[in-house]
């Protein structure tokens, strides 16, 4: 009998409080990290129902979704109604004693950026948050997924969730990564090949030598977009890279507890004989820098390729989806991606707003200027990221190149939902974010997804550009 288990199986079984029926379990949740948009609703409902928070020491809050990113920001938000979320969440977290990374806290930032950076997310822990990109922290080996406000309420009240056990899927990257190919390019390539629904019902482990060679920041980027092919979550097995990253983080264990934790974490990687329900393999030799042409992250091609033709789609449903995407995005098949002019460039978000992302963009921006007329914006992923970037002179490079240097938050990724600071109708934005959906960055805004290097290079030339032209 094969008793081999996957990474996800091991974490899963260590958190099963009880089996409820067949594949559905009551799961213990180690970390409940909420933000002002969804968390305010959850806590208000907890209060209205006169329920208690079961484990305050496993609960955390941050402000990221609604608040502005302009310098000198306050509780006042550009988007009407935003202030209520900030103030309700602040008051409710305070009344329940839940720690909050408030607007002026040196650790404030986008939840998926600060959770691993503070060591609140840990390998082998179950981690829930009211945001779909919670899967990001799979990059340090946490089993993490996004939940709605009612499920967040459920975690606050019971420290548990009722969950169907996901099937196991593994994506293995073979070969060697080409120079100038980023983690963002790998994940966009994967989603373009596998499809926007390839991960449904599955937890996805990224594996293979290429993944093992990635930094934690790169793994976080890969896991961030697991939800973009509708996977339950994405995860990378914790290893020495993970432990080196975590060992001095403020919330990470210390001393003997750290040693015990590492010993446990080393048992988590999938057993060699573990069986996966679905396996995909990609050879990195085929991966070039990617950019999206349509309105789903699966609509991605190499930056030196052309806009695809719906006529060549494998079936009529895909053809219709592609045609609709082209109508929205305002492009015609056969256009070289590099011939597409852009109106704006955005660097930031939970996908690519970490220090390494800003450093990579700064390498290209240094001593250069963005093309005339381009609205270029950088919003670092966290206050700490911003602070270090400023001390390293990165902010100066961005600003001298013509970028606006902003405060951290989700705003520009989900215009209107957040600070209401989006782009204008019809504008074409090249963005390091994760969603190129219709209207995602503002009504009628045409979003193209790419890596920080591609966005920086393209901002300089004013059109979509292969970043390898600016070195590797």
């Amino acid at each position, binding site marked *: 009998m094969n008793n081999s288990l996957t990474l996800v199986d091991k974490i899963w079984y260590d958190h099963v409080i009880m089996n409820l029926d067949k594949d559905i379990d009551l799961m213990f949740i180690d970390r409940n990290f909420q933000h002002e948009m969804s968390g305010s609703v959850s806590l208000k409902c907890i209060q209205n129902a006169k329920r208690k928070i079961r484990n305050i020491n496993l609960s955390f809050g941050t402000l990221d979704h609604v608040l502005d990113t302009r310098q000198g920001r306050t509780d006042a938000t550009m*988007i009407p109604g935003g202030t209520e979320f900030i103030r309700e969440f602040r008051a409710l977290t305070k009344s329940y004693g839940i720690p909050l990374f408030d607007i002026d806290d040196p650790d404030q930032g986008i939840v998926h950026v600060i959770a691993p950076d503070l060591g609140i997310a840990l390998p082998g822990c179950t981690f829930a948050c009211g945001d779909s990109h919670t899967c990001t922290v799979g990059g340090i080996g946490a089993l993490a997924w996004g939940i709605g406000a009612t499920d967040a309420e459920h975690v606050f009240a*019971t420290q548990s969730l009722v969950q169907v056990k996901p099937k196991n899927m593994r994506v293995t990257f073979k070969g060697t990564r080409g120079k100038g190919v980023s983690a963002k390019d790998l994940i966009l390539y994967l989603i373009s090949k596998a499809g926007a629904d390839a991960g449904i019902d599955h937890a996805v482990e990224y594996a293979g030598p290429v993944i093992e060679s990635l930094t934690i920041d790169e793994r976080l980027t890969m896991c961030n977009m697991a939800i973009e092919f509708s996977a339950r979550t994405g995860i990378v097995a914790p290893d020495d890279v993970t432990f080196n990253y975590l060992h001095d983080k403020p919330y990470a264990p210390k001393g003997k507890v750290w040693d015990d934790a590492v010993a446990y974490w080393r048992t988590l990687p999938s057993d060699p004989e573990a069986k996966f329900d679905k396996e995909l393999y990609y050879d990195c030799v085929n991966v070039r820098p990617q950019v999206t042409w349509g309105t789903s992250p699966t609509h991605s091609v190499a930056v030196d390729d052309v806009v695809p033709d719906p006529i060549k789609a494998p079936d009529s449903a895909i053809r219709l989806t592609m045609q609709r995407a082209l109508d929205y995005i305002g492009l015609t098949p056969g256009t070289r991606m590099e011939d597409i002019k852009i109106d704006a460039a955005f660097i930031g978000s939970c996908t690519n707003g970490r220090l390494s992302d800003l450093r990579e963009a700064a390498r290209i921006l240094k001593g250069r200027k963005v093309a005339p007329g381009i609205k270029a914006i950088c919003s670092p992923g966290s206050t700490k990221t911003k602070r270090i970037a400023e001390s390293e002179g990165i902010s100066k490079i961005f600003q001298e190149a013509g970028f606006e240097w902003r405060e951290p938050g989700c705003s520009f990724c989900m*215009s209107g939902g957040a600070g209401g600071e989006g782009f204008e109708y019809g504008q074409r934005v090249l963005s390091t974010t994760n969603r190129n959906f219709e209207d995602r960055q503002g009504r009628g805004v045409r979003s193209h997804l790419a890596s920080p290097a591609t966005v920086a290079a393209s901002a300089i030339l004013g059109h979509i550009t292969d970043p390898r032209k600016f070195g590797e």
Partner: protein
Amino acid sequence: MEKFTVINGISAPLMRRNIDTDAIIPGNKLLKVSKTGFGDSLFGNWRYIDTNLTENPDFVLNMPVYRKAIILIAGTNFGCGSSRENAAWALKDFGIRCVIAPSFGPIFYNNCIKNGLLPVVLLENQVEELAEHVTQSNKKLVTVDLQKCEVTSPTGLKYQFTVSQVYRDMLLEGMDPIDATFNFEHEITAFEQNDKPKRPWIYQY
């Protein structure tokens, strides 16, 4: 939570793939610290042509025959993307009780269950056939029976579906999901007591 047993009513086909929760309710329509009052914002950017809420006559839910739809039929991966529960709340507020699709975004699926909104998974060819029969019929009436786990098309065709027993019971009885879990408080405490010495780093920092 509202019980879901058997419903019979108008069914509206919206046969696009990968309809994301940003499309179901746009980001700038989420701004109420509340779980209700989102019905007018459902499919906001598709349903209206401007910010004065002028209706787009071509959008399915604006067509007279579909205005009172209680069932939505959609393409694969419905509700993908953002975890905003407002997507489920907006559908519910509009009057939708059930969405039938070949597959659903994972977070949206869970959010539906918690709000008495039934997500029904059928095979892609069944969903296409059902949508076609609804389009061809005059009254657009479909029955969804959670007791029998069965969908009946306007032409009388029957499709069986499955839903986890735990979720089915919750919906049939209209159970509050949090109250249901409170029944297991003893088990949760036992888990914690057993787990704390094994993984102290989770509980102390």
